[in-house]
């Protein structure tokens, strides 16, 4: 029984960590994209 619980815990943990790491990367990228777009717009507004 303990092994069953351990196995299911590990399973969910790995799936969770994988999804979480994707979510974090996604959030970081989205933030970076926003910042980059803002800079690009700024540059376009003031001309090169």
């Amino acid at each position, binding site marked *: *029984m303990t*092994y*069953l619980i*351990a*196995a*299911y815990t*590990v*399973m969910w943990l*790995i*799936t969770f960590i*994988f*999804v979480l790491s*994707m979510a974090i*990367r*996604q959030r970081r*990228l*989205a933030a*970076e*994209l926003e910042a*980059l*777009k803002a*800079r*690009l717009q700024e*540059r376009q507004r003031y001309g090169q």
Partner: protein
Amino acid sequence: MERWGVGKIAIFLHGLAGAAVLTALYMALVFAPREAAMGDVQRIFYWHVATAWVGFFAFFITLIASIAYLRTGRRRWDIVALSSVEIGLAFAVIMTVTGSLWAKPVWNTWWTWEPRLTTVAIMLLIYATYLLLRRVIEDPGRRARFAAVYGIAGFVSVPITFMAIRWWRTIHPVIFKSEGFDLSPAMLVALIVSVAAYSLLYVSLLLLRTQLEFLSDEAAELRESLDE
């Protein structure tokens, strides 16, 4: 830029995958009958087999995407190959750990160097190296090409792993033989639901992971255009 993983159909798919995984959990823990000889530990089996199959399938998708990349040179195939390796590796690790946790009470050891476990260990190493290889090549085109070649060459380990329990005498159980299944009907239903659920989860994760890579490409492009 492609937008996979965020459309209406994709969101529906993510929801469906979540629901399927919860259903499979119920099937494995409650619906499936208690196995007479092994007891409740046997319930690990449904997820072990499901992650194993979907993991193998993920590496197969990598093979297909790698060949497609070499043929067409399109970045999206490279992204699919990479994403599929990451997901497949996560599933394969789950398979290995759950297998080990099942082996401890049943075989009385965490690990033994028998054919199936040995070939699985080799397969894990190969796909971990695949990810490492991508990190040591700077040029994107070359990285994609080398990774594709390694994705093709490395795939040979997958059928060997799959066939290991059929070719050699081993203590690892073989559930699917040419004569039929070694399971009671209710167990078979639980297994099919688990495999289906994990397949859906794979598709959903693949959509999200590829989406992430497209985003990172977009960011890289913007960065470059800013630097000019």
